[in-house]
């Protein structure tokens, strides 16, 4: 290390004189010292102030430019050296050297720039200003089909440099994409698939770019899906597979790429992984099982890819996924249930699956997760049942299979996602199913829980679904007993509040339910309706120009129905209903105008 001080001193003099021979010797010394102890040598280099002299040694005429670039590449492995390299004005001459024809110069320059950009904002913006990226991309493009080892090494370094340059920096990633780097990288991956280092670097670079939304369209127009699947099939090492997964996952967010991946046979690979890893308790295998089955679900989020894999319910993929549900592995159960939930995205698929016994499988799965169950599995299975309950023809079948009873076991759940899907499933099931609606509507435990959840302000979804189910129980059962149960449980005030929801659909559902209450059990409900200020709310809805026509119409129907109650009638009289209603006689919507006339007459007669 004493030698090093001497060398640095000597270098200071020779660098200025540019006496070539001794200069070469000094640089070799530095490289040797760096190889022995990079950090310590780098500290000394910085302290010596020699960095500033390097710029003059990086000119195209300099005979030692490759060595100097090599030294810079080495020192820039240290975080504390990166800003000093930028401040010493090294970026611009380095970028100039990227125009060299000499392979060694290109290699060392690429390394130097890549390491300076590593995790360094200053490095990246300096390279950006000097226009380094475009030159590197041009090189990649012109060199990409040469397969000799030296060239492949250079390509690897260039890919790495672009990766470091754009990592965690969206605007630089966008810049690379605009420069058209993606097709070139995909081409590299195809040509050099035998070269592990280069392949790996390509994958890392992809992973970096794939996170940007704007890249996906470009990726979709290349054969990346095919190349990645080809590569994946060859990999047996866990780490390599994980790397490919990391690229596949963000790419598979794009629906076009989903379909390409399915067509390239990715699903078969994933199924094989699951088969191999399902019984293993090794950590790597568990991770891979999760990544593989998660990706499988992701592919099913696309409509086209999903339908292709369903193959009329006879596809081997569908069959295999089905077999995951009764497995003993929670991850597989989850993936299986999520897959079914996503296959259940159109009537034909839902009807086919219900006819072929999917409901029993899902109920068995739910049954295994009642006590201390896995929340994600519960949520997934309930989500599947919710979607399956949408086609009219499935409702009766699912009801007679006992789905309501199975689902109600989760009424005690404190997990909002589970509550949300439980409510959704019940609401889909009772749609136009009077008997089921009546049965559920008389279930005091359920109704009390619904009323409780109507106040779950932290969970808008649960709150909304509870309100809607409450209304649905009344609308589909049209049962006095159901209304009585809801009144007793304190549900009326929620239905009144729901009439002011931001969603017209919900407003309307509330008004229709309230109209049924007024028609069937006004006496039982009048006190609650009064204290919930229903009449005032109706007045506001009618006076508000923004209310939808159906809201105006149903509010007037409800006003008429409420006149049967003495106390509510009095409230109607106290507010200036006649004014707002008579204005509505000229409403552009004919039904509203007509109902306004009728209501006006009623109000006049009864006043």
């Amino acid at each position, binding site marked *: 290390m004493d030698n090093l001080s001497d060398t640095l001193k000597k270098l200071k003099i020779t660098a200025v004189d540019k006496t070539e021979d001794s200069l070469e010797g000094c640089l070799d010394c530095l490289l040797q010292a760096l190889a022995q102890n990079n950090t310590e040598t780098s500290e000394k280099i910085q302290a010596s102030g020699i960095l500033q002299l390097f710029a003059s040694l990086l000119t195209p005429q300099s005979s030692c430019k490759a060595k100097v670039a090599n030294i810079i590449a080495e020192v820039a492995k240290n975080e504390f050296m990166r800003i000093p390299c930028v401040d010493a004005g090294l970026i611009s001459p380095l970028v100039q050297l990227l125009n060299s024809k000499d392979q060694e110069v290109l290699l060392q320059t690429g390394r130097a720039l*890549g390491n300076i950009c590593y995790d360094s904002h200053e490095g990246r913006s300096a390279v950006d200003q000097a226009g380094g990226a475009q030159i590197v991309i041009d090189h990649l493009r012109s060199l990409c089909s040469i397969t000799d080892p030296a060239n492949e090494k250079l390509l690897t370094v260039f890919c790495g440099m672009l990766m470091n340059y754009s990592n965690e920096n*969206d605007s630089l990633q966008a810049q690379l994409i605009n420069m058209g780097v993606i097709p070139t990288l995909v081409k590299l991956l195809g040509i050099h698939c035998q070269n592990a280092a280069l392949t790996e670097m390509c994958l890392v670079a992809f992973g970096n770019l794939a996170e940007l939304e704007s890249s996906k369209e470009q990726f979709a127009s290349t054969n990346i899906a095919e190349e990645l699947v080809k590569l994946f099939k060859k990999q047996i090492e866990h780490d390599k597979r994980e790397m490919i997964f*990391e690229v596949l996952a963000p790419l598979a967010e794009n629906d076009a790429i989903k379909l390409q991946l399915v067509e390239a046979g990715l699903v078969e690979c994933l199924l094989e992984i699951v088969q191999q890893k399902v019984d293993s308790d090794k950590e790597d295998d568990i991770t891979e099982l999760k990544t593989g089955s998660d990706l499988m679900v992701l592919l099913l989020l696309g409509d086209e890819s999903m339908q292709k894999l369903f193959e009329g319910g006879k596809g081997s993929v569908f069959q295999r996924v089905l077999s995951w549900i009764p497995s003993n592995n929670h991850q597989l159960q989850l993936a299986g249930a999520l897959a079914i939930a996503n296959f259940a995205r159109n009537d034909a698929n839902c009807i086919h699956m219900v006819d072929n016994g999917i409901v029993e499988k899902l109920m068995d799965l739910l049954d295994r997760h009642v006590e201390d169950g896995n929340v994600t599995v519960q*949520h997934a299975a309930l*989500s599947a049942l919710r*979607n399956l309950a*949408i086609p009219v023809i499935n409702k009766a079948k699912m009801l007679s299979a006992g789905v309501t009873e199975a689902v109600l076991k989760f009424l005690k759940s404190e997990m909002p996602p589970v509550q949300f899907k439980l409510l959704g499933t019940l609401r889909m099931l009772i749609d136009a199913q009077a008997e089921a609606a009546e049965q559920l509507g008389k279930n005091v435990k359920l109704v009390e829980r619904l009323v409780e959840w109507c106040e779950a302000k932290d*969970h808008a979804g*649960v709150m909304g679904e509870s309100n809607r189910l409450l209304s649905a129980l009344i609308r589909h059962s049209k049962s006095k007993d159901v209304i009585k149960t809801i009144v007793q449980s304190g549900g009326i005030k929620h239905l009144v509040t729901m009439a002011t929801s931001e*969603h017209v659909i919900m407003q309307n559902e509330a008004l229709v339910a309230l109209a049924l209450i007024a028609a069937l059990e006004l006496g039982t409900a009048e006190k609650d309706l009064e204290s919930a200020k229903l009449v005032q709310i109706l007045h506001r809805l009618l006076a508000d120009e923004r209310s939808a026509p159906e809201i105006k119409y149903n509010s007037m129907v409800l006003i008429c129905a409420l006149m049967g109650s003495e106390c509510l009638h009095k409230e109607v009289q106290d507010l200036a209903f006649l004014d707002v209603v008579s204005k509505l006689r000229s409403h552009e919507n004919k039904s509203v105008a007509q109902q306004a006339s009728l209501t006006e007459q009623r109000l006049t007669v009864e006043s």
Partner: protein
Amino acid sequence: MPEQSNDYRVAVFGAGGVGKSSLVLRFVKGTFRESYIPTVEDTYRQVISCDKSICTLQITDTTGSHQFPAMQRLSISKGHAFILVYSITSRQSLEELKPIYEQICEIKGDVESIPIMLVGNKCDESPSREVQSSEAEALARTWKCAFMETSAKLNHNVKELFQELLNLEKRRTVSLQIDGKKSKQQKRKEKLKGKC
């Protein structure tokens, strides 16, 4: 009604006119539309695992909220992540964020584990720029938070902003669509060191 109600609250702060609402609107109307627009349609739904939360966004005007300090405190104490928006054409709007940041520190204590993003919006209006990105970056470094410039108008970096914010979440898995991005980035970093 959100599809899933695993609440994850993002509070958006910024002076009037910096484009908070347009940013959020851009985001909500953008590619994540399906999962974000509250919907009451009774149609088929895509289903993703419920450990991947959906977030709700709460926008607070720093100019307006001076009148309601309690509201501001509430959004901070209930917030899981924070977006501090200024306009690159107004130094004043950046200044106004400082007391907000201080209040976040005061209420939340250890802010290093909380996702905070300093956002310079209107980067499409570069000619009338008053705040250089390097300045804001430096501020972000002292605040130990992330920084990004966006243009709600051009839809530049908008989705990335929200994605990045969620990537900063260290305590739980929060994701817009798929999880694991953060750990992925870290892994990748480790892999790359010294590669060049």
